[in-house]
């Protein structure tokens, strides 16, 4: 029948005439086929290489130096080897406050954003075209609103003296005196979580929706005829189909939520005066760029990249492994 065969994991795209791995006697067609991936890649690689390769190398080189304003002015290097890394890894607040905040927050926000976004995508997929357009466009507003503005709006809503939240709670009699929600670590991060999920779920919703709309209807109908309920159909058919999409969404959300900066920095007390809410982005900024210690900041960047590599390794392997089959 038609496309009932589940999309096979992409075994190598067998270009016509077979990209033979044998060495001798290539036809020009084979050579063209073999060079094709590189030709396709070339423009993108060129941009990335020219623009980012050297800066990335420089970041690594800075991380091995005590690179401050004086070094920037004179252009003379000041090598100190791995001392920056040592200082970072032995900073007590990194392990007691910064990393726990960052990791805990990332876990919650990725889970929340992906779950909520997926739920919304399912809802959207079940709507008729008109309402789908209206609703998805409305959701876009949350994504389109500048993160800076969004953060300030949430700060207003929870403002201690004039915020809508406190006002409503007091009117309902649930609160006697206005509370400053930003001084307590847990309520502070609850607000940040709200902010980040609100800003981030549209991306997940739109991406998952795109994937959902590509799931062959026949498969779902066949399963329904076999008596599978909605949840069963979702988890047994849709989710596996969307595995790649989910993997990418989770990887990217993890990376972004680990690097959250503005949403914390702009909150009252989030710029460093409240030491219990420091996360990696703010801590890094305050310790390094705020103090003209660019070598230190570069070392943190390198460590963070490695950390993210490790964390996303599981998903990345899922994504890549599927292809090998």
């Amino acid at each position, binding site marked *: 029948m038609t496309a009932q065969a589940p999309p096979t994991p992409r075994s190598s795209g067998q270009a016509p005439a077979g*990209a033979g*791995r044998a*060495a001798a006697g290539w036809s020009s067609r084979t*050579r063209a086929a*073999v*060079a094709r991936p*590189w*030709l396709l890649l*070339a423009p993108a*690689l*060129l941009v990335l*290489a*020219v623009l980012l*390769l*050297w800066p990335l190398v420089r970041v690594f080189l800075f991380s091995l130096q005590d690179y*401050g*304003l*004086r070094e*920037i*002015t*004179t252009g003379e290097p000041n090598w100190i080897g791995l001392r920056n890394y040592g*200082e970072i890894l032995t900073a007590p607040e990194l392990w007691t406050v910064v990393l726990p905040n960052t990791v805990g927050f990332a876990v919650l926000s990725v889970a929340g954003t992906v779950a909520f976004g997926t739920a919304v995508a399912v809802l959207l997929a079940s709507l008729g075209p008109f309402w789908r357009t209206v609703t998805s466009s409305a959701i876009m507003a949350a994504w389109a609103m500048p993160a800076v503005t969004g953060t300030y709006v949430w700060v207003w809503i929870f*403002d*201690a*003296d*004039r915020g809508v939240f406190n006002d409503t709670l007091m009117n309902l009699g649930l609160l006697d*005196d*206005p*509370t*400053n929600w*930003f*001084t307590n670590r847990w309520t502070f991060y609850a607000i940040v979580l709200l902010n980040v999920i609100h800003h981030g779920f549209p991306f997940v919703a739109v991406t998952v929706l795109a994937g959902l709309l590509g799931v062959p209807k026949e498969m779902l109908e066949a399963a329904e005829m076999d008596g599978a309920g909605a949840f069963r159909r979702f988890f047994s058919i849709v989710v596996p189909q969307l595995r790649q999409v989910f993997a990418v969404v989770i990887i990217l959300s993890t990376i972004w939520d680990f690097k959250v900066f503005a949403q914390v920095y702009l909150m*009252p*007390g989030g*710029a*460093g*005066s*409240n*030491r219990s809410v420091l996360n990696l982005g703010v801590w890094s900024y*305050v*310790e390094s*760029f*705020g*103090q*003209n210690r660019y070598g230190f900041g570069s070392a943190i960047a390198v460590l963070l990249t490695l950390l993210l590599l490790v964390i996303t390794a599981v998903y990345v392997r899922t994504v890549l492994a599927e292809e090998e089959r």
Partner: protein
Amino acid sequence: MNRTMRRSVAVTTGAVVLAASVAACGSGGEGGGESADSLSVWIMQGTNPDADAFFDEVATAFEEETGATLDVQFVEWGDAHDRFVTSIAGGTTPDVAETGTTWTPEFADAGALAPLDEYVSDAGVTDDLVEGLVEAGTYDEQLYGMPWYAGVRSLVYNTEMFEQAGVEAPTTWDELEDAAAALKEEFPDKVAVAVPGDAEFTVYPWVWGAGGEVATLDGDTWTSHLDSPESQEGIAFWTGLATEGGYSSTGATTWRETDVLDAFAAGDVGMAVMGSWTPGAIVEANADMEGRFAAVPIPGKDGGIAPSVLGGSHLSMFETAQDKDLAWAFLEMMTTGEFAQQWAEQSGYFPGQVSLLDETLASTDPLVAPFAEQFVDGGASVPAAPTYGAVQAKLTTSTMMQSILSGEQDVATASAAAAEEMTKILNGAG
């Protein structure tokens, strides 16, 4: 296959390297002040509402005097430090720039600024400069920042609220506390006295007023004295107004100076430590506030005036400036004489030249005179260390204030932690 792959990679890499080197060769010739006939200047945005017209005038006068054109760029305060750093890194520094008083020692220490002592003595104004600004602009016993303008923070109060509550402007700490109590009783829903948790410069007057010190230099070592008994007394008084008297608000625990101004302009605050530049901003935010507020120097513990930070800007010359004499001509024009006076008037600040101050000091304007008094009799400076910027970035003082105001730590613990951190950072240890 391998050979083709490698060849493709080699070709691509080669192209990249070629492109990069062609581009690199083509650069150069960048750098501040492209030609001797033009001077590039960076000025901070927002200080003077009439800045554009002002600099048009200056440009004309400058061209008449030197024959060179002026290229003025306005920079936002918030981005300025980053832009300075990237411009130094990329060799695109201006010839002259406005530098905040805490940045001048920092850039001087990095070797980015040119010393001005010779120029100043040749121009004969060495003794005519405001001391606080000179102190802030001196590094390693050389002057790097030309005093341009400064402001000072004093106690600003809502005259209507005071009248209704039947209180007078306080002159001692006891009077201040009584006034706050009376205000709180008359206006239970408003903030009697704003005690912000994230406004560093509003804390130091109380430290100094009680006889304490922020930090002192002994030889080459800095030591912070925020935890000395006197400092603690001052901090305890100021935070006590909030934690014990309840004269502030829960929101104020995380307030910055901008939030204080917002609340004051809305008429919700009885009194607050605010800068001499704020009256204009208050009226602009809320025209109804005009004529309904006044200022008084920050009272010392038993009378007198508590020292308050002279915040302001220098005009500095970059080492990369090609024609330093031309740059000095501009510096002199801006910081002394007619243009300095005009700038100060238009922006609501005090000029950096003492002889120009006399006129301002003679003013009887209730929104100028108290600040002027504070400026002359109660002006102080934060530690003029190149590392002070790092202390500010770490928000050491604000952290202390916030933990006290939120009830997490008591004054003794919080101030001890802050003093320790400040000492460490000032001495460059991280």
